[in-house]
């Protein structure tokens, strides 16, 4: 929605996200609509403020990429030092959670088995599966052959019986 006009300055945080945050921060408080709109715009302004300051700090430090340290220093110099402890904590928490998740999933997959062994087991399973498939196919073919043979024999004896039957008829006629 914000990018439809193509103007960078129209970029804002989605209204819904802001509304949700305000609701969680001030439950049971009525918030005027123009106040909500204002908060959305204040966010953008804040982000610009922090990025510009962090960018300046970054330029002075000879680095090309804005680092977490630059952001923290920017918060400090702009009077938002009170945020620093919490933002650092949440970052650390997120990293720890992500690390735990990776460890847990790899633990589950490996069950303590090294990778080469897993590969070997996989190859074995594939080979077994292929063999079983081949045997199954062969069995089916044999069965088909047998069925075909039986059908042939049945057809042959049926026609033989027919011929025998018709010659019998001729004999009977002679007798009469």
């Amino acid at each position, binding site marked *: 929605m914000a990018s439809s006009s193509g103007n960078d300055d129209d970029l804002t*945080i989605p209204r819904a996200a802001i509304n949700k945050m305000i609701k969680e921060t001030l439950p049971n408080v009525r918030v005027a609509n123009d106040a909500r709109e204002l908060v959305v715009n204040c*966010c953008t302004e804040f982000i*610009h403020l922090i*990025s510009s300051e962090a960018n300046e700090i970054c330029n002075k430090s000879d680095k090309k990429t804005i680092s977490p340290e630059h952001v923290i220093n920017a918060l400090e110099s702009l009077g938002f030092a009170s945020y620093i402890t919490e933002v650092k904590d949440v970052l650390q928490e*997120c990293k720890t*959670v992500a690390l735990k998740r990776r460890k847990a999933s790899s633990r589950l997959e490996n069950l303590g088995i090294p990778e080469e062994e897993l590969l070997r087991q996989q190859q074995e399973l594939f080979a077994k599966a292929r063999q079983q498939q081949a045997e199954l196919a062969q069995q089916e073919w044999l069965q088909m052959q047998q069925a075909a043979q039986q059908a042939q024999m049945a057809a042959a004896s049926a026609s033989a019986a027919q011929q025998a039957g018709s010659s019998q008829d001729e004999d009977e006629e002679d007798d009469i």
Partner: protein
Amino acid sequence: MKMSQNTPDKDDQTSTNKKTISLPMSRVRLIMKSSPDVSSINQDALFLTTKATELFVQHLAVASFNGSGKETNTLSYSDLAQTAEEKETFHFLTDILPKKILARDYLQSLDQMQDDDADF
């Protein structure tokens, strides 16, 4: 490195602001890049900025609500404007939120100016 955001785990529903972040980092990045001269941003730096913005929203909301002085259950535009004016940390917002002044105040200041001119 994947970071969790948006939908918090069921366990931390009560502490959304502590454990995860609710604002979309992708949007924050776009806004940051629209600042002049900003080139590249480290992923962790982006995370910190996003989280700081969340704290800012909470801070602004609470400060404005408490600072309204009157016994009210509403947060209004003027509450926010007033906070920006009174609190130094929020001064940077005065550019985008001119305090809506009452018409009579404006007329009063006009009269004042005219009086001043008359003195001259």
